[in-house]
């Protein structure tokens, strides 16, 4: 009986791909395990193996065809009739997984210097950020990060990258593509799966004056190493009376991905933002990823740099100038507005912008603030915005309890009490470990409609 070979989804985020090459021709016999074709995905070129035995009767999609949607029939195998069960052709295709497409946002800002009498370590104003007017190139966030690392490695011989699969594999999420080839094994170092060990080793190297970039395959695995990040990296400068500092960047994807369930889907923003002695960054745009990572690498302190797997593939116009930096500690007005302030960071900025758009058509003008840095926290920008809009919705992917939104609520009490026309509203991940099932996962993480509903609620409309 004939079986259709369908375009396979080869990664959690793939929706379409390119048939790079057929390795079998029509009429060839195929056995299970034979490589039928090579397919280019968003991340890599993958081999597709036959699962059924038989003859490759027809190639439906010729090689070289790009943008072939997942689940499209690409070939037909006529079998030897041994399969008694439902075969591939009779299984109803599932809904394609959606991948966010990108929309760049204009860079606008409203600098608001602050001078609190008793400066909290977490709320210090950052250096002024100059408007960038130079050359830009449209690249993905993944490439922006790679460029930032490469430029800083060229600039400073002390900078090196260490982590699991960063060298030969070119990064588990392909962030370090090409770095091994340019910088060699001395500076791009593959490690065993020993997070506490290599994070601690990075701290030691930092104490000794090197500038390590420690990549965690995801921040979920940094929990193995969190003792080194907090107890060793963040506290030593203080405990040594300022003698010993640790210029180190801990970076990797944070937050949810796609259907990878509770142990691989968690936002650590408020965990790290809680700790003095650290800087914590969670950007959204390509320019901010590049400019903030470069600042982080140059920073004399430990910086936790939170990326997001679902943002890696987004494209933005990114400055080319190797001296383009974004200061740590400054929020960014991602979209100016008048009636309600929406704060967000990392992937949630995208949702907040979409929500603002919907609110616009409902006649509500929302100001979206991309927090970018969570420690030190840019309280001034948020306060100035709320003193204008009188309402605020704080969005984050993480859990509500003691989250970034809770901190913002405290800030509102302390600095905007007299300006508020509605209670602070938080939109957060639900207070449960992240479920695997597609429908429950969607319910557990903030969606655009949740942000829209929250904004309407604080606007009483």
């Amino acid at each position, binding site marked *: 009986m004939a079986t259709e070979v369908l375009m396979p989804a*080869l990664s959690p985020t*793939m929706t379409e791909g390119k048939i790079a090459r057929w390795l079998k021709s029509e009429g060839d016999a195929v056995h299970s395990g034979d490589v039928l074709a090579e397919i280019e995905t968003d991340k890599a070129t*993958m081999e597709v193996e036959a699962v059924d035995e038989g003859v490759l009767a027809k190639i439906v999609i010729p090689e070289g065809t790009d943008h072939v949607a*997942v689940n499209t029939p690409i070939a037909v195998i006529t079998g030897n009739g041994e399969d*008694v069960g439902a075969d591939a052709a009779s299984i109803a295709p599932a809904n394609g997984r959606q991948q966010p497409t990108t929309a760049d946002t204009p860079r606008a800002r409203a600098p608001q210097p602050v001078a609190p009498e008793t400066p909290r370590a977490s709320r210090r104003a950052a250096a002024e950020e100059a408007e960038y007017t130079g050359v830009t190139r449209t690249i993905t966030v993944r490439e922006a990060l790679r460029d930032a690392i490469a430029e800083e490695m060229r600039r400073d011989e002390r900078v090196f990258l260490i982590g699991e699969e960063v060298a030969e594999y070119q990064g588990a999420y392909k962030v370090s593509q090409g770095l091994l080839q340019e910088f060699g094994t001395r500076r791009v170092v593959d490690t065993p*799966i020993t997070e506490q060990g290599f994070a601690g080793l990075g701290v030691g190297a930092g104490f000794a004056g090197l500038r390590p970039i420690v990549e965690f395959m995801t921040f979920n695995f940094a929990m193995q190493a969190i003792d080194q990040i907090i107890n060793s990296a963040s506290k030593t400068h203080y405990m040594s009376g300022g003698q010993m500092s640790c210029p180190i960047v801990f970076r990797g994807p944070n937050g949810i991905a796609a259907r990878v369930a509770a142990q691989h889907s968690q936002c650590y923003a408020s965990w790290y933002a809680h700790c003095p002695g650290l800087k914590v960054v969670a950007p959204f745009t390509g320019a901010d990823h590049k400019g903030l990572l470069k600042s982080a690498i140059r920073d004399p302190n430990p910086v936790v740099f939170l990326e997001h797997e679902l943002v890696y593939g987004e494209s933005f116009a990114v400055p080319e100038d190797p001296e383009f930096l974004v200061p740590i500690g400054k929020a960014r007005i991602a979209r100016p507005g008048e009636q309600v302030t929406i704060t967000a960071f990392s992937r949630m900025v995208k949702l907040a912008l979409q929500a603002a758009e919907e609110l616009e058509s409902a006649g509500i003008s929302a100001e979206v603030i991309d927090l970018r840095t969570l420690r030190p926290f840019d309280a001034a920008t948020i306060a100035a915005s709320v003193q204008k809009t009188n309402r605020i919705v704080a969005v984050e992917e993480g859990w509500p309890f003691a989250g970034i939104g809770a901190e913002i609520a405290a800030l509102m009490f302390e600095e905007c009490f007299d300006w508020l026309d509605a209670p602070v509203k938080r939109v957060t991940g639900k207070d449960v470990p992240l479920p695997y099932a597609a429908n429950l996962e969607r*319910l557990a993480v903030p969606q655009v409609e949740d942000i829209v509903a929250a904004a309407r609620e604080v606007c009483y409309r």
Partner: protein
Amino acid sequence: MATTRKGRPVGVAELDASPKELLGFYRDMLLIRRFEERAGQMYGMGLIGGFCHLYIGQEAVVVGMQAALKEGDTVVTSYRDHGHMLACGMDPKGVMSELTGRRTGYSHGKGGSMHMFSREKNFFGGHGIVGAQVPIGTGLAFAHRYRDNGLISATYLGDGAINQGQVYESFNMAALWKLPVVYVIENNRYGMGTSIDRASARTDLFHRGMAYGIPGEQVDGMNVLAVHEAGLAAAEHARSGQGPLILEMLTYRYRGHSMSDPAKYRTRDEVDRMRTEHDPIEQARQRLLEGGTDEAMLKDIEAEVRRRVAEAAQFAQDSPEPAPDELWTDVLVDA
């Protein structure tokens, strides 16, 4: 003895097993193989999401090992867990519908491929964090000793996991307190894209307990009879109060690390060689045929296995997703 302390290969001919026993191993391995092939296919169709790590190639390890355990012994492993669950006797329908995220799955759709459990079958997961199952398996052994129930813990880990610090903390406690645990290292030569010699200062992993006085043996993990025999001896050692033991199973995974791994770090040749020369299922099949088993019988087994897998796949697609209010259940035990 089916195993060698120096890693010398052991000829299949030296091993005995009743044809009935071997036939059972054959069936169990085939079930895992066909189940995993189908899971891979369903992943490709978008029916399974996230990470999905297939066990294809390693079937002999868990099948031989589980057959050496007795009722009540506990099992814990990593995210590459589908084979372990089937070998523990868990229902393919329940496993497959967890993979599709449906309410009929072992975790009611909330755990997915990497996080599945069965109290009834004494399967304690399914853990997504590399190495984390090792102290947990040691704790299961602690409970066995505490209760003095004559049971043991089979704790599986990879050649990549073996370098995690918590593994050695576990070894120390297990040896110190003579806990009834067998650590089964599934050395498939790669931890994701990193070959063992690029991750481990010493690659003879069965020696890793030496500093704690834990004996270790290297086993041909592609030979289900060798695994079974080593498993029996190891289980006996642990059960009799002599403390932990390490079995290093030399095995191989045919597929990429997970569904999204292009596996460019090894040659197609290497994979083909393992597949054609060492395939655990093919080896068992040949031995059965040589021992006079009727080919028609093997065909019947194959058909039966395919039918079960097809049924599981159908069930996993037809079952409903969890009810939305399931989102809020199971966070804490009601007290």
